[in-house]
């Protein structure tokens, strides 16, 4: 069994979904997503948690250019695949209450995007990586633009231009790397084996960095993000925040740092500073938000900043923290957006100041909300805690100051998250919130799964950490061996 089945199934599924009626399409899509999840789980069970690449597929694609359809799964990829395959059914399920116009197209696009994402996470060929990268971008553009809010056209074109611009620079970097390889291959391992001068590495570093920084997003490349999150339909926002921004992070781990180690050693410090600025910036802005969805969006900037900081610190703890935190953040942020989706669907607004006392009328909802908030603020025994602890540790080993700043920000984050919870759920019922009905059916299912995941991962993260540990360690050792320039 190779990874190709994992990549092609969603494409086929996407096409098939288009042939269903709108009402049936969501069931079909969910079915396909679950099949995909099943596949992924079977992959996990068969996975040997060492540094090797498994389930390898390697077919000629454009051989005269050294391009091969080559993909495989190592520990890092496995985590990402798991994240994707778990979240996609959840996201599809979360849309059950919506009546989307021309819904089958939405589900087809989601499935297609899943294929792109999985390609990114498993690609071992630079070209394939790029193609997957863009293949994930097109569907999300259409999802956001077709089913988005008022300003969707302007916001989405901004989003698209940003990400596309970034990715083109990445393409240039990839082609450049290819041209340096002695055997003219796009294979990632032949990229790894290159020893380029610092100047060349600088080019490559910036080519990749801009693409990934925009995707994550790192301050100051984030300006597309809050608008897009706000305007996008909830499913789109979830795809974006839950999975897509992980593409950037994964890219940094897999493509940026190993391919330009010396440039990273030179620039990593500044990248780290940018990440920390992002944490602070995201938190401060989030603190002032009235719109719940925007608040989550900015908090996401802060969290991603932390993940990025952990990676740029480039230690086993940091990267492992990033791995686990990616999953946690994915789950939490999907949950958070779903919460806000439920609220805005019931109340027609997302303005926090208009709310209050919902817990009284919707106890189940309030419990789920609370768990997700706690997960987000990284309370021990929730999933957020494991990741943030490791990340902070990684950053702490790098420089204490940044760890301190980042740590303070986490506390800060707890404040605004809890304040949000308080404002929305507690206090007096008003006219608006009195109409709130408790969650039911598919909503209950989704929130239930999310809460369960939050707690399970929080209590017992070991299997997940174990999955990626060997690969991460191996990667860090190989790359660190190449550092010639001194760190700051």
């Amino acid at each position, binding site marked *: 069994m190779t990874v190709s089945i994992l990549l092609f199934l969603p494409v086929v599924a996407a096409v098939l979904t288009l042939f269903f009626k709108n009402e049936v399409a969501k069931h079909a899509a969910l079915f396909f997503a679950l099949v995909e999840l099943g596949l992924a789980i079977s992959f996990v069970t068969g996975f040997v948690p060492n540094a090797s690449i498994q389930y390898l597929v390697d077919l000629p694609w454009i051989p005269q250019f050294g391009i091969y359809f080559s993909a495989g799964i190592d520990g890092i990829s496995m985590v990402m695949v798991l994240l994707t395959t778990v979240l996609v059914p959840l996201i599809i399920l979360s849309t059950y209450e919506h009546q989307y116009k021309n819904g089958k197209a939405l589900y087809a696009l989601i499935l297609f995007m899943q294929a792109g994402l999985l390609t990114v996470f498993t690609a071992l060929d630079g070209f394939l990586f790029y193609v997957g990268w863009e293949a994930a971008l*097109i569907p999300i553009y259409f999802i956001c633009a077709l089913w988005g809010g008022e300003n969707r*056209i302007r916001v989405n*074109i901004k989003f698209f231009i940003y990400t*596309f*611009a970034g990715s083109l620079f990445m393409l240039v970097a990839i*082609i450049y790397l290819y041209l340096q390889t002695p055997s003219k291959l796009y294979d990632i391992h032949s990229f790894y084996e290159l020893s380029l001068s610092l100047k060349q590495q600088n080019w490559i570093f910036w080519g990749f960095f801009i693409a990934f920084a925009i995707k994550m997003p790192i301050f100051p490349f984030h300006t597309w993000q809050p608008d897009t999150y706000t305007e996008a339909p909830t499913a789109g926002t979830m795809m974006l925040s839950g999975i897509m921004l992980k593409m950037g992070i994964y890219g940094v781990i897999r493509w940026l740092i190993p391919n330009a180690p010396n440039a990273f050693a030179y620039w990593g410090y500044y990248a780290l500073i940018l990440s920390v600025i992002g944490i602070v910036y995201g938190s401060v802005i989030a603190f002032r938000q009235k719109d719940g969805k925007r608040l989550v969006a900015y908090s996401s900037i802060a969290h991603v900043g932390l993940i990025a900081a952990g990676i740029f610190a480039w230690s086993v703890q940091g990267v492992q923290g990033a791995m686990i935190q990616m999953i946690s953040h994915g789950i939490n942020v999907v949950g958070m957006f779903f919460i806000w989706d439920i609220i805005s669907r019931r109340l027609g607004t997302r303005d926090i100041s208009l709310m209050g006392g919902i817990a009284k009328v919707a106890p189940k909802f309030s419990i789920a909300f609370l768990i997700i908030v706690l997960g987000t603020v990284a309370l021990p025994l929730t999933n957020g805690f494991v990741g943030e602890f490791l990340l902070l540790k990684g950053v702490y080993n790098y420089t204490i100051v940044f760890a301190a700043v980042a740590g303070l920000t986490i506390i800060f984050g707890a404040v605004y998250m809890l304040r949000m919870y308080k404002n929305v759920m507690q206090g007096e019922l008003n006219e608006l919130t009195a109409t709130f009905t408790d969650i039911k059916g598919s909503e209950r299912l989704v929130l239930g799964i999310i809460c369960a995941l939050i707690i399970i991962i929080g209590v017992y993260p070991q299997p997940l950490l174990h999955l990626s540990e060997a690969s991460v360690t191996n990667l860090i050792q190989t790359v660190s061996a190449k550092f010639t320039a001194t760190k700051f």
Partner: protein
Amino acid sequence: MTSIIIISILPIVLLYLGLYKAQKALLPVAVLGLLAALVTSVLQWTILDEAQPIYNGMLLYNNFSVAFSVISIISTILILLLSKGYFEKISNHIAEYYAIILFSLAGIIVMVSYHNLTMMFIGIEIMSVSLYILAGIRKNDFASNEAALKYFLMGAFSTGFLLFGIALIYGATGTFDIDGIRDWLLNSPRKIDPLFYTGVMLIIVGLCFKVGAAPFHFWTPDVYEGAPSLITLFMSTVVKVAGFAAFLRLFSACFLPIAQFWTPVLLVITIITLFVGNITALYQQSFKRMMAFSSISHAGYLMFAIVAIGAASANAIFMYATAYSIASIIAFGGLILVRQQTGTDGFEGFNGLANKNPFLALVLTVAMLSLAGIPLTAGFIGKFYMFSGALSQYRIWLVIVAVVNAIISIFYYFRVIVAMYFRNADREQVEVPAYYKFVLGFSALATILVGVYPTVISGLIK
């Protein structure tokens, strides 16, 4: 070689069919004839690419020629299929329409297979003179008249430059044969005289005029806008492709030894072309004019292969040209349909198209994505080849300029998508005739097929 003969005789047959009022037979005969030409052309393909010059060294029908002939013929077939019912509305000389297009195609086939500057000149002129007529075929339409006159004057003007360049090169080398000129360059690099350099410069000017590269592009938008849409389509696809094929053939086979002389010139031209085309396209309110300007910027991308000349250049141009041609066919096919309904060339004519015509909107989206160079479409493969070529010569700044331009181009290509999907308008369903369905569907599939698995055609030229 038979294909040139078939394509030359075919229009005469069509003219006579038109004389005897066999209007119904025109399109089938034209398409069948072209298919025959296609087959004969493909049969010329050899694995080792060992074709020898024929007719006293006048023509060389090698794999390069086969590949470009094939794409030209296929594009023409698709364009002719789109013409079903189109020409009748413009003029009552339908047979002439088909015939002149095919005459032009005959010139194009010569252009992609010449081995002697004489034939290059003849090919270019057979093509151009036919196009002058085609541009003005809507006799009572002022814009069409103007397009024809401008195109004609500019075309003749550029021919002058081209010829003067050829004359000077002949003066320096004493031959029109491509190999002869190259041998002369290789054998006497020391005494290369100023005549030769001036000649090369003038040929560059002439050819840049013909392919519409800035700063010699100013006729392009007017002519493209004024000419009937189908003719514009023909000009911006087949003709442009052939122009670049001829360009490349000359520069790769002939002027390669002095590449360091002309690459800086072409580099500047490329960069200007990219920016001029893109930035002006950004401000257009008419879809047709946008396509015209964007075709200038595509000319810029195509120039990449010549600037970064090398073994892969032919393939790069071929891939890019193929992608660009089929995407343009979709775009213009869509434009013709939309225009028939709304009567406007503007972007607003596309508003809300997706609701009523999902198929049309989908294929147009594929076309726009391809033109913008998004992966999994043929356009991306084309750009990828171009970037690879340029980077392999370490022209990093050129590629960065190109990247910036690719980003700019997103704005205007996505305007169409935005209009179709995200803007609403009260509109009726556009009727899509079966011919159009076939052409558009075929082109969209080809775009995606090439985008996903480019090896299907990238092996044509080694």
